[in-house]
């Protein structure tokens, strides 16, 4: 609101302008999803974004899986909520962990992530920078099986290889197979193993002191709650007490996706949504944390390579015969 009182210039309105522009422009977010087949990844993504990203899904049989290597499949969808547009890209990695020998199964994934960064770097240093599309992977949901006793060797190796390149959010899938006690034991075990192996997973940053109370409280609750989040997804609506809710119907009861007593789905969604819709540090942080680290690493690398080339050229010039 413009005020004509003395001393008021009006730039206090800047955040609103930025906000308006961002809302108009929309947000981009790329989420990578990694985990063995059958952990409910697709169902969870559809539940999180209330969309059907995989309408004509084909699940290959074992014989086909034997032949396959890891594929990268990106699906983009434009979602809108209250006038805010989100261009969401979900990068799937079918084939991960399926083969009998999974030794090389994350090479393809690492290559993909690196390529997106290269491309962005390249576009950024190009002539036409107005319409750069940001396809860098901002976040990776890594699905941990609820059937094991903790992390598997493959889980450890993957996270160690990728924690420097992408924000890893470990997620315990199909949480309805665990009792409360089993869930807590598994979370503790997973966290122990993560710290034992020096794996850096995405940590929600603290809220700033000047944020509003509600936001601070929300952040506090999210941080205090046990990660990794143990979640359930569902595309089916079940009638419970007269209401239609997302859930899974078993002979012994109904598991409700959005019931915090049943699983951590709401916490996961809140965390993700906080990162996406807020023009806050969190959003920038999520995108830029890896961005700047990688960018500087790559820039350093490029710089170093150039320096090496120059050094080589100089060495060669010095060695040229008959030039003294």
């Amino acid at each position, binding site marked *: 609101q413009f005020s004509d009182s003395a001393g008021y210039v009006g730039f206090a309105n800047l955040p609103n302008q930025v906000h308006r522009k961002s809302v108009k422009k929309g947000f981009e977010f790329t989420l990578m999803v990694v985990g063995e087949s059958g952990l409910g990844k697709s169902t969870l993504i559809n539940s999180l974004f209330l969309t059907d990203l995989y309408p004509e899904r084909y699940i290959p049989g*074992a014989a086909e899986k*034997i032949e396959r290597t890891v594929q990268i499949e990106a699906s983009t969808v434009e979602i809108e909520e209250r006038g805010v547009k989100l261009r969401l890209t979900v990068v799937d990695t079918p084939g991960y962990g399926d083969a009998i020998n999974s030794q090389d199964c994350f090479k393809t994934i690492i290559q993909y992530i690196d390529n997106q960064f290269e491309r962005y770097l390249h576009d950024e240093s190009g002539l036409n920078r107005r319409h750069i599309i940001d396809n860098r992977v901002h976040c990776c949901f890594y699905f941990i099986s609820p*059937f094991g006793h903790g992390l598997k060797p493959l889980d450890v190796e993957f996270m160690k290889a990728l924690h420097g390149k992408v924000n890893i959010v470990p997620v315990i899938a199909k949480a*309805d*197979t665990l009792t409360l006690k089993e869930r807590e034991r598994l979370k503790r075990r997973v966290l122990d193993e993560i710290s034992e192996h020096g794996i850096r997973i995405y940590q929600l940053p603290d809220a700033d002191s000047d944020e509003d109370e509600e936001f601070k409280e929300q952040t506090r609750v999210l941080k205090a709650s046990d990660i990794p989040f143990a979640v359930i997804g569902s595309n089916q609506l079940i009638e419970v007490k007269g209401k239609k809710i997302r859930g899974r119907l078993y002979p012994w*009861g109904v598991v409700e996706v959005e019931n915090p007593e049943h699983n951590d789905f709401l916490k996961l969604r809140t965390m993700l949504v906080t990162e996406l819709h807020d023009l806050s540090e969190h959003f920038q942080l999520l995108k830029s944390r890896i961005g700047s680290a990688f960018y500087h690493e790559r820039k350093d690398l490029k710089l170093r390579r150039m320096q090496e080339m120059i050094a080589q050229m100089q060495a060669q010039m010095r060695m040229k015969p008959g030039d003294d």
Partner: protein
Amino acid sequence: GQSGLGKSTMVNTLFKSKVSRKATQPGREERIPKTVQLQSVTHVIEEKGVKMKLTVTDTPGFGDQINNENCWDPIIKYINEQYERYLREEILITRKRKIPDTRVHGCVYFVPPTGHWLRPLDLEFMRRLSKIVNVVPVIAKADTLTLEERAEFKQRIQRDLKAHAISVYPQEDFDEDPDDRALNDRIREENPVHRGGGGKGNGKRVLGRKTKWGIIEVENPMHCEFPMLRDLLIRSHLQDLKDITHNVHYESYRVRRLNES
């Protein structure tokens, strides 16, 4: 099966006593071993005056590595070693009155409840093992699948097995009695069978798992097929498993070995 699929719990539930390897080593934190090991535990259990010497062989490390190629080899080796042992006793001129039988009569294979298809590892394992031992595939931790998902999963598994000509127990060709056949057909339709874990229940004592959304009763056939598995393995087909092991699997081994020498 891979670690964490509830193998030890199932075995304990099946025999209503702590017979698994883990039960005999309580309190140890489970770490995945780097190679597949075979560990057997033997108990003598008794019911209504009938004694049974039960040996449970576990395979920690199976399918847990990043590279699981040939992880079935130690298992195949173990099974053949037991046949070899028996053979040596059998060909003695003065045989023991009762040849000690350490042969594996049944191999329960735990398939994770992905709801999709059998994984390459499952296929490879069952293809090889079903040729030398009775393999009973079981969908582990089935309480994560709705009834609909279970039915679909089972169908896909059965199709997969058929497509790859993998013959699991009860096998089709060994029916003798027409009455037997009717029974086997029903069981075969239900095969693979599911199970849920074991635990304590509410006011009325049931064996089950307590969750926020309900109590899963292990012995309730509407919840899980554990009773059928128990019936199959113990109540009705225990002797059948032994007979087929002796008359079919052991015989093939014996014929192979005698031809070799």
